[in-house]
C-alpha cells in the first residue's frame, strides 16, 4: 500500500480536533491546579499554555487516536508536566525571593476573599510555607503530593511518575514525611525569627 496523502490529510485534521478536545477537557483542572500553586491568574495561565504546548509537542500521546482510549494517560501526563513546570517556577521564585528578601507568600497571594486581615495574613503565611516546603522537596516528591492533592488516583499517579501502582502508597508515605519535616522546620524557624 502506498502512502496515501489524502488519508494523511484527513488524519491531520482529525488530530487537530483530538488535540482541541483534549485541551478543552483538561484546561480548567490544569489551570486550577496551577493557580493553587502559583497563586496568580497570569502565572497560572502562562503555565497552563506551556503545559499544553508540551502536549502539542508530544503527538505520540494523542495523534491518530480518539480522545477516549488514552484519556487517562493524557490526564496523568498533563498533571505531571504541569506540576513539573509549577515546581520549577516555585524553585526559581525561591531563589529570586531569597535574593530580593521578599516573603514568598506576599508575592504570591492576593489575599482576596478573606475579609479578616489577620486571618488573611495567617493564610498567606501558611501558603508561603507550603510553597516553600514544596520547593525544598525533591521534585518527584513535590509532584507526587501536588498531584495527589489535586485528586489523582493511585493508578494515575503511578502512570504519571512511571512507578509501579503498588509502590504509590510507599512513595506517598515518604513524600508526606519529607514534606512535614520541611514544613515544620520552616514554621519553626519562622516562629523563632519573629
Amino acid at each position: 500500500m502506498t502512502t496515501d496523502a489524502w488519508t494523511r490529510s484527513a488524519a491531520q485534521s482529525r488530530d487537530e480536533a483530538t488535540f482541541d478536545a483534549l485541551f478543552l477537557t483538561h484546561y480548567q483542572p490544569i489551570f486550577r491546579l496551577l493557580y493553587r500553586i502559583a497563586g496568580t491568574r497570569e502565572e497560572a495561565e502562562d503555565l497552563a499554555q506551556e503545559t499544553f504546548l508540551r502536549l502539542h509537542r508530544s503527538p505520540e500521546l494523542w495523534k491518530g487516536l480518539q480522545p477516549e482510549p488514552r484519556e487517562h494517560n493524557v490526564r496523568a501526563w498533563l498533571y505531571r508536566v504541569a506540576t513539573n513546570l509549577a515546581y520549577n517556577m516555585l524553585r526559581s521564585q525561591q531563589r529570586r525571593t531569597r535574593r530580593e528578601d521578599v516573603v514568598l507568600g506576599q508575592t504570591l497571594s492576593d489575599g482576596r476573599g478573606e475579609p479578616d486581615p489577620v486571618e488573611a495574613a495567617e493564610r498567606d503565611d501558611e501558603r508561603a510555607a507550603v510553597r516553600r516546603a514544596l520547593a525544598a522537596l525533591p521534585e518527584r516528591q513535590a509532584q507526587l503530593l501536588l498531584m495527589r492533592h489535586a485528586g489523582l488516583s493511585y493508578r494515575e499517579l503511578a502512570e504519571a511518575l512511571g512507578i509501579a501502582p503498588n509502590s504509590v502508597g510507599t512513595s506517598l508515605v515518604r513524600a508526606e514525611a519529607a514534606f512535614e519535616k520541611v514544613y515544620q522546620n520552616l514554621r519553626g524557624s519562622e516562629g523563632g525569627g519573629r
Partner: protein
Amino acid sequence: MRCNTGRLQAYLDDSLSPPERDAVASHLAACAACQEELSALQTRSAAIGGRFAALTPASYPSADPARALARFHSETLPARATPWEAIRRSFTMTKHTLLNGRWRPVTIGVMALLCLAVLFSFAPPQWGQAAADFLGIFRVRKFAVILIDQAQQAKLEALAKQAESGQFGKPTQVRQAGKPQPVADLAEASKAVGFAVRAPTSLPNGASRKSFTVQSGPAVHYEMDRAMMQALLDATQVQGVKLPPVDKVTIDVDVPFAAEQEYTIGSGTLSIVQMASPQVSIPPGVDPVAIGEAGFKFLGMPDADARRLAQSIDWTSTLVIPIPTNVVQYREVTVDGVSGLLVEHRSDKTGRRSVSLLWQKDSIIHGIHATDVDPLAAMQVADSLK
C-alpha cells in the same frame, strides 16, 4: 500478611482492591503496631491535607477553556515554534502542499532555508574555486523536482529532526510570520503586499470566493560555526567533502508578503497564492553546484548522477522540491505564458484528486492548489489571471 506502611497508606486512601482491602482490614484487627501506624499516618495525612487546602482560593478566577484554546492557537503555538520546528513542519507541509495540502506561503521560504542550510555545509573539495560565480542571494525563479522514495524521505525527515533538536545550532527568528488578514479587493491586497496581485478572470462553473487574505512571512537569521558544520556533516555521512575554510557561515532568509484567494467549487476547493520570492542570502565563496551535488548524494543518488543533476541546476534561482515518488505524478506544463510544474495526486481510497501548479512570473511566485478540480481547469484559471 506482613506489615507494610505503603499498603496502610493505600488503605487509608481507599486505593486498594477489595481483596487487598479485606486482607489489610483483617490484619489490622489483629496487629496493634499497624493500628498505631495507621493512626499516625491518618493524623499526618489529615494535617498535610489541611496545609494543601490553604492553597485553595475562596474562588478561582474564571478560566474559559475556549478562550485559552484560542490564545493557544493564535499566540502560544506561533510564538513558541522554534525556527527549526517551523522548518520541519514546513518540510512536511511542502510535501502536503504539493500533494494535497493547502498552500502555505511560508513553506517555500523555510523550505529554501532548509535546503540551503543542509546543502550549504557540504563544502566541496574544490572550495573557493567557484566563488566568483556566486551571487550571494537566492531568489526563486524556477522550480525543479527531485523524486525521492520513502527511505530518502525518512532520511530527510530524520535530518530535519536533528536540526530541530538544535544539533546544528539554532536560528533566530528576526520576524514572525503574520496572521492572514482579510482584504476587500485586489487594490487593497496589492497595496498590502507591495506588488500587483492578480485575480482570475475565468473560473469553473459554480465557483464562489471563500476568502481573500494577505499574510506577511517570517525572517530568520542563522549562524553555523565549525562544530555545528562538522556535526551536520557527520549526520549526513556523505563521503568526500571538507568543511569550508571559514569560522562560521551565516544565512538570512526573508519571506515577504503573500496574497491568497480561496474558492469553493462544488465539493472542491481552489486556492491561488501569489508572493514575492523569499530571499536567502548566503556568504560569498560558496560553490552551490558542489553543495547541491553533496545534497543529492545524501539522498542516495549515485555520484555521477548527482554531479550531472547538480550541474544542470541554477542554484541561485531554482528551488529544488523533493517529491515522494510513490504518491504523485508531476509534469512540466506551460501556464500563464511561462513554464510551470503540475503535481497531481489521486487518493487510492477516496478517489479524490488534488492538483498543484507552481510557476514564477514577473518575479512573483504563483501557486494554485485545488481539490476535486480537473487539472486542465486549474491551468485555465492560471491562464486567466489578470
